Every structure is written in structure tokens, then in C-alpha cells.
């Protein structure tokens, strides 16, 4: 069948298997090569291969320890399902990316980050252990103490070390389903960076950044910070039902938008309207967990607004030493090209000391571009600017980077590729992405 990632580029004719149990999965793995797929929310070709294995039917929760907050679950359980089951009992995800429609397996494979990376780290920090199926079809438990090497290669290893079958993750206790949100309108990039540094102690922070703005307004942003609201901070009438929040509406995008719907003008108008609306918003208030963490989830199938050809994500991180200049150069290149990113996010990362994970202390910028010749011409330039400033790239977003760029910016992957060859993993686990990038 025809298969692609969330960005709908690239796509390929793939055999999609949906095993129901470990024995069926092991039989497929021994036959390899293949790649596991969860919710298919990686943007490019990370979970895409001629033989792709859906882990959607490995979706059972196994145990929960209300003393420690440890949840043991199969890899196909989604983060949204965890929130649904455990928020009413006072538990939330320790780390969540910008969509709840991702599986535990996918979150581990990409070692996803959220708005609290600077304060609490990436997803992997809250993974106690992983049951990983290796090339021989055997399941091995990996943790910081047990098969530690394999554990560390698996966090951020893009599914290329084996198949995550189940895992133990730690949830965090919360007193409500609400977030105390503070919004700061920053008229340009310097003001935005200043706002991030001034609010570094906030648990959650991120900014929507206007990539269409130029001149004095280049990099203008709405910086959003948040804290889990304590029960006593809720309006009196909500204190008895602190976990009840208004239902997240979920309209669907009913059809593929025509290719011209997103053009430089509509992108500029949208960004202008968004900035002006938030500039006037009150600066602090309560926001429900849904719109705070998952604003795009309220619009199902939002990838269809980019039309049939799809779109590409670009996410880099620029280290702290060179971030301001790096970001300015990137924004300059985008506005010169006229490509304009519809949804752009800027975020401060904290230090990250894991073996393969994407984050590093600095600033990350996530952009999406419609699949056009203009975008295809711009992205290698953004690659080059990122590389010049000592930055690196997020493979869960990538669909088109060259193997050379990855080698030049992130030497860890060369070591990873060697490890895969030496331990016989390369012949069993491979994605279109791993082949493109020589992993």
C-alpha cells in the first residue's frame, strides 16, 4: 500500500504488516529488513520502508504503580491514551511533544522533547526500561543498568536498534488539568531570546515565531510559559473537579487544500493576524492541558492543508555560543527566499547528555515548508547555516537531508552506523531514512 509520514513526503509502495503478538513480530523481524511504525507522526521517512511493521495492535497498558508513577505499557499505546487514563487520577506525562497522537515506541525512538526540555529533559529521562526485540527475535530488557549500551543507543535511535515492544515510563503528579500560562509578545528576535532567558526558571516554555516578518521586526515572537496549576489556583467552582477541562473539539480537515492555498501572502497574513491577536491577549491566564500542549491536535489531519504534495519540516538546534547569529542568519535566508513557514516554533533547550538524542543546550527552531521547488532550494541553505554555527538536526522531522550533512554536523551517527553493522542490526532494521543517511 501507499505509505508516507506525516508530511506526506516522501511516499512509497510498502508492505504494511500488523502483527498481534511477539511470536508474529519475531517471525517478521527474522525475515528483515523492516522498520517499526507507531502513529506515523514522524514527518519524513523515519518510519517508512519497503516492509513497514505497524505496532498499533501492541497497545495494552500492563501495570501502574501509584506510589512511583511508573506505567508499564506496550509500545503502541499513545501518549493521548495515557493522559485520558491517568490525568483523572492526578498524573500527567513527564515529557510530551506537541501532539498526543504519538506512540510510546515512537517517543522513545525519537527521544522526543517538549516545552519542558530546558527544565526537565527529554522523554528518555523518564524511561525506566525498554523491552527491545533484537534481530534474532528475542526480547531483551534494557535500562541504564541492564544492557546499558543498547538502552542508550535506543533512545533517539530511530527504531534502528530493534523494536520497542514495551516500556516502563514515569508519569508526574499534577493537581489539575490546567496550566497557568504567561504570554509575552516579543517585537523581534532579540526580545524573544531575552524573554526566554528571563523566564528560564519556568517549567514550560516555547515561542511561536513569525518567519515572515522582516527588518526591525524579524523574529518577532509570542513567548509562552506555563506551570501546572495547583488546585488552589483554580477558580473556586473548578476546585472540586480539577481534572475536568472543556472537551477538545476535533474538526477534521475534510480535503486536501489546493497547492496554492499556502503562499507567501497567506502565510504573511496568517502570521500577522496571529501576532496581533496574541499581542493583545491578557498576559497570564489558565489554559486547559489540551490547547496548551497540543494546539494542532484540535485540527485533525491538519497536514492536508499543505495539499497532496505534502510538506517538509526542518528542525535544527543551534548551540548557545552562536545561537543569536545563527538564528538571525536562518531567518534572513527564509525571508529572502520568500518561502515563509506557516507554523514556526522557537524553543530554548537545556543541556542533554544522552548518546544520540537530538537536543543540546541552545535554541531549536522548527519550521514547515510546503513541498515546492522554492522550499527544496532553501532547505540545503538552512542546513549549511546550521552546520556553520555548530548546530544539528532532528531526524524525526527530516525527509531530505543528505548523508554528508548528517556526517558533518553530528559525528555520533557514524559511530551508531558502525555499531549497527558490527552487531548485525543493519540487515534487520532499516528505514528509507536510514538508507538515505547511510545509517
Amino acid at each position, binding site marked *: *500500500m501507499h505509505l508516507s509520514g506525516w508530511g506526506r513526503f516522501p511516499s512509497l509502495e510498502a508492505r504494511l*504488516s*500488523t502483527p*498481534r503478538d511477539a511470536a508474529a513480530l519475531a517471525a517478521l523481524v527474522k525475515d528483515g529488513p523492516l522498520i517499526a511504525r507507531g502513529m506515523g507522526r514522524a514527518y519524513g521517512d523515519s518510519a517508512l520502508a519497503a516492509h513497514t511493521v505497524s505496532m498499533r*495492535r501492541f497497545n*495494552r*497498558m*500492563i*501495570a*501502574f504503580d501509584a506510589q512511583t508513577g511508573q506505567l508499564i505499557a506496550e509500545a503502541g499505546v499513545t501518549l493521548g*491514551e495515557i493522559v*485520558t*487514563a491517568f490525568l483523572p487520577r492526578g498524573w500527567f506525562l513527564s515529557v510530551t511533544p506537541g501532539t498526543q497522537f504519538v506512540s510510546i515506541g515512537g517517543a522513545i525512538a525519537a527521544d522526543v522533547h517538549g516545552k519542558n526540555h530546558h527544565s526537565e529533559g527529554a522523554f528518555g529521562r523518564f524511561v525506566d526500561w525498554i523491552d527491545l526485540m533484537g534481530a534474532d527475535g528475542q526480547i531483551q530488557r534494557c535500562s541504564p543498568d541492564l544492557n546499558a549500551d543498547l538502552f542508550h543507543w535506543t533512545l533517539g535511535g530511530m527504531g534502528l536498534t530493534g523494536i520497542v515492544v514495551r516500556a516502563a515510563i514515569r508519569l508526574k503528579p499534577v493537581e489539575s488539568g490546567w496550566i497557568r500560562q504567561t504570554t509575552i509578545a516579543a517585537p523581534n528576535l532579540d526580545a524573544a531570546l531575552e524573554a526566554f532567558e528571563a523566564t528560564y526558571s519556568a517549567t514550560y516554555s516555547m515561542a511561536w515565531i513569525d518567519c515572515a516578518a522582516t527588518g526591525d521586526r524579524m523574529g518577532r515572537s509570542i513567548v509562552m510559559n506555563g506551570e501546572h496549576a495547583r488546585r488552589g489556583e483554580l477558580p473556586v467552582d473548578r476546585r472540586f473537579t480539577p481534572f475536568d477541562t472543556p472537551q477538545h473539539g476535533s474538526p477534521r480537515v475534510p480535503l486536501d487544500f489546493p497547492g496554492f492555498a499556502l503562499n507567501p501572502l497567506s502565510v504573511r497574513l496568517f502570521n500577522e493576524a496571529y501576532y496581533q491577536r496574541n499581542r493583545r491577549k491578557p498576559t497570564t491566564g489558565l489554559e486547559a492541558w489540551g490547547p496548551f500542549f497540543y494546539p494542532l491536535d484540535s485540527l485533525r489531519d491538519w497536514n492536508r492543508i499543505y495539499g497532496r504534495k505534502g510538506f517538509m519540516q526542518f528542525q535544527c538546534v543551534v548551540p548557545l555560543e552562536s545561537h543569536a547569529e545563527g538564528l538571525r542568519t536562518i531567518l534572513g535566508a527564509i525571508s529572502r527566499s520568500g518561502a515563509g513557514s506557516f507554523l514556526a516554533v522557537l524553543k530554548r533547550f537545556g543541556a542533554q547528555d544522552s548518546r544520540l538524542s537530538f537536543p543540546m543546550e541552545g535554541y531549536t527552531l522548527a519550521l514547515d515548508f510546503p513541498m515546492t521547488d522554492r522550499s527544496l532550494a532553501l532547505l540545503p541553505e538552512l542546513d549549511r547555516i546550521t552546520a556553520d554555527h555548530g548546530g544539528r538536526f532532528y531526524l524525526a522531522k527530516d525527509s531530505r537531508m543528505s548523508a554528508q550533512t548528517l556526517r558533518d554536523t553530528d559525528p555520533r551517527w557514524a559511530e551508531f552506523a558502525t555499531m549497527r553493522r558490527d552487531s548485525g542490526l543493519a540487515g534487520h532494521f532499516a528505514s528509507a531514512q536510514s538508507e538515505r543517511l547511510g545509517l
Partner: protein
Amino acid sequence: MSASILILGARSDIARACAQEYARHGYDVRLAARDPADVQADATDIALRHGVSATTHAFDALQIEAFAAFADRLPELPDVVLCAVGFMGEQAGSQSDARAASVVLRSNFEGPALFMGLMAERFNARSHGTLIGISSVAGDRGRASNYVYGAAKAGFTAFLSGLRNRFARSAIKVITVKPGFVATRMTEGMDLNPRLTASPEEVAQAIWQAQAKGRDVVYVKPIWKLVMTIIRTLPEFVFKRTRL
């Protein structure tokens, strides 16, 4: 006391989705499968997610003489029985081998119908209950490609229709579900038209809605109702020449 649902053939994808749907609405769940160990993980998951009671039970649709004892041993007489037992078999094998055909007929018709009949009697004694049978569009008209399975499902459909007629004036409800194509273990690897294919979760939601709204016969995707109406009304001299 909360309501409970007994699900037969609980290992199937549709049954698993239904178990989640009913548990989400607060039902205690009784999962019955040939080997209860196969559905233990589901029971654990359901209890953990939804805080309801979830238990597993051994049930073999081919052991009709064990049905009454099985029903006696359940923790309670359930409020809802959902039969998701089904076995498609291979049409080629069913054509040439009476033994293979017999397993298909008994798994899809004899066992499910007789068990629903038994539960109908017990519901009648208590004077309420809901019986939900998962039948198939394959039972709406026999086709060369799967008429053994289709004939069994046609029998099950007729049986459910008869029960519904018999209890129409009582508080016993009978719902026939004809899911059409569903992306399940049974159809894996088949090249199904995505417009005609439902997910197990959609089937479960349609079943829950059907019970809530008191519907009798449910086609999950509305287009199937149209498709099957056309197929049923084709004159035989036309139909017999088709390849569907």
C-alpha cells in the same frame, strides 16, 4: 452495581475495540475466548484504563454441549452479550472438503446462534438484556468467492432476525451488525478499498451508538447499506453472472 457485557470471540480486533468502548462507558467486561490466556493482557489493560472489573473465561463456539455450564459459571448474567466469533476459512477448502466447510458453518452459525438462543432464554426469564451479533454483509447474498462463510452468516442473520421478532414487544433487544470491510487480522494482506473499510474502533463506536439508539440492523459505513441494497435487488439472472 454496574452493567456488564460478555464478549465472545474476545481475541478478535473488533471484540477488543468493543471491550474498550463498553469499559469506557463504565461496563464491567467478561472476555471469552478459546484460550483465556490470549485475552488476559486485554483484561488487565481494561481494568487499568477504565477502573472496571474485567475477567477472562474459556469459551469454544464448537462445544455446544458446554454452553449452559459456561453461562452458569459467569460472575453474573450479563446485561449485554456481544458475539464476535467468526472464522472465514478458505473458500477453496470449504468447497472441496466437507469437514473444513463444517467448521466454517458451525463456527459462524451453529455455535453463535445456539449460544445467543440460550442467552435469550435467560434474558427472557430476567425480562431484559441486549444481544448483539456480529454477522456479515457476506450473508446478504451468496457469492462464488465465499458462499460457505456467507451461508453461515446468512443463517446467523436470520436467527437474530427471528429472535428480534420474537422479543419485539419486550425489553430484550437484538442487534445485528454487518460491518462490511474492516481492517482486522481476518482481512490483513487483502487489498481493500479504503472508502469501504472501517477500523475496529469505528465498528465499536457504531455498535455502542446502535445500542444507545435502539437500532436493529447496523451497517458500519453507511455506503454499505446502499451497496448491499443494490446487490440484494439485482435480479438473479444478472447477479449470477457477476464477479463480486
